[in-house]
């Protein structure tokens, strides 16, 4: 498991964090690929930790989901749009595959979550990918504008790590196992 951090352009990519060690980079057909867009490196770290925590939960508790996933992280709106368009530094489609689900932070400097969402919803193919808003804000206005822009779901980041892990478990279970994915 490897992570790279490009400090200069705040790009933080954790390519192919495998939900299961047996899954390789190239084999993505039955793997859920998550694109996490968040400007706060700590939140990114927490989200990744929470996802790992879901995996590390013992199977006996019934919490182990056995959902295979990979995750890519971008840390601002512009990069997110570059990623989904496979342009600039994201041309390599094998390295940067199109996601099956996008976790999008709402409040980001520059191009914010809603702007990214609106752009995504105007792009062919990628507009079918479910976008789950992951925000610190529980405000009505933020919720409304997210859903109006086409969000599939809106989650408020809990302060407790335990709750965050639970949320990630449900997220993986729902979007990775139960949800029938659109063809992108």
């Amino acid at each position, binding site marked *: 498991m490897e992570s790279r951090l490009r400090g200069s352009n705040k790009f933080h990519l954790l390519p192919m964090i495998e939900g299961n060690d047996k899954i390789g980079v190239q084999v993505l057909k039955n793997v859920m690929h998550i694109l996490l867009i968040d400007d706060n490196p*700590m939140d990114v770290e927490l989200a990744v930790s*929470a996802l790992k925590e879901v995996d590390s939960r013992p199977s006996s508790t019934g919490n182990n989901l056995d959902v295979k996933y990979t995750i890519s992280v971008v840390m601002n709106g512009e990069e997110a749009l570059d990623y989904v368009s496979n342009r600039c530094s994201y041309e390599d489609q094998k390295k940067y595959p199109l996601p099956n689900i996008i976790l999008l932070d709402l409040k980001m400097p520059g191009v914010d979550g809603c702007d990214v969402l609106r752009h995504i919803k105007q792009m062919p193919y990628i507009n079918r990918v479910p976008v789950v808003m992951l*925000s*610190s804000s529980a405000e009505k206005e933020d919720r409304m504008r997210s859903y109006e822009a086409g969000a599939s779901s809106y989650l408020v980041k809990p302060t*407790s*790590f335990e709750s965050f892990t639970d949320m990630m478990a449900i997220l993986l279970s729902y979007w990775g196992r139960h949800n029938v994915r659109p063809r992108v």
Partner: protein
Amino acid sequence: MCREMEDTNDMISKYSHGRLRIYSVAFSTLLLLSTLGTSGFHHLAAANPSGICLELFRESESAKLIIEDRTLTGVKSSSETSIPVTKDKESSLFERPAFLLIVYLWLLTIVATGVFLWFRGRRSLWQQRSRYRTLVENVSDLITVLDGDGTIRYVSPSSNHILGRSPNQVQGTKFSDCIDAEDRQEFQKLLDRSADQLQRAGALSFHIVNKEGVALVLEAVATVLYFEEERLIVVNFRDITDRVRTEEKVRLLNSDLECRVRSRTLDLQKANAELDAFCSSISHDLRAPLRAILGFSSILEKRLDDQIDAESFKYLKNIGEAGEQMSRLIQDMLEYATLGLEGIHLDEVSLGDVLQDVISTLSTDIEKCAAQVDYPNELPVVVGNRTLFEQIFRNLLGNALIYVRPNRAPRVQIHCDVRESDVLIAVSDNGIGINEGNKERIFRMFQRLHCQ
């Protein structure tokens, strides 16, 4: 023939249609013919002033006339004349005296009525003229009659106080001379319009400065008037100076008020926006680092569980607990800050339902500490805000479950007392209670009297 009849001393008469007609002049002078001439008779005696007596008898075929001269002593002379009476023809309706009398009376009535009506008309006309004159002369509005080019033909006496000049001084001058130069064109337009449309032209207001130098605002309405083949325009002017001034004052006051309201609204909106931004900042900016503190301390706790000494582990736990507490405080503060933002809506709230809901949400805690909650079976319906009632009950019950005496199961009692228009709800518990000196403190924000 006529001449002969006039010369004779005999009475030449014709009796026809019941009427005796006397043709001889000499004889007629003896008589008061008017009395004879009118109706049929059988016997008639009369005397003229000179004493000549005349008796006339009507017989079937003739009339006998006896004339006696009684001017001197007794009967001076007498003559008797027999007048042949021609048989009456069947007289026509129009010649019958009764009919003629009716016709005369009828005509007389008509003439009399006509005369009466004429007099009455004249009187009414005179009265009306006098009434209108009084009206025009006493009205405070200025009534003028202008000709086509605006020259004043008539002006009501109110010109004295409106224009500052008497009607005599004004008549013959042009009205537009009194009007402000700017408004003259408009005034001429009003005259033209009323002359063209042959109807009342709408009100127009304009400014004048009268002889006394007082600036006035007049409102004018104009109507065309035809008088002796000449087209004139009646223009009524009303002094609306006071009204205009008052309106101006009201307008200024209103605009001032609007300005102030707008400014206050802006202030309020700004304050609300600031509060929103503040809340948003708390919920987003303050929570993000808190989440990191809690998250990473939690991860560390797990990872270092068996690698660090107990004291270090306790410190790590302290970080987590302090973070949790801060999270709660932020939540409380947010709730408090957003409490009034959307306005508190009052509604009919069933206190029984509210209490049931609160008890069911707290049921896990109630069971855990084996608490007993006693409350009346029926609670009244009151007017209030359901969310706030819920919060009050939740806080009171929640506190009763937390702040307990050691080794004693919490017991909460809820009493309800309905007094006329008020309802008193009392919640009491067997917990640690609140010191008398601290009773005010509990109503301050974020106050806790005991550590949990």
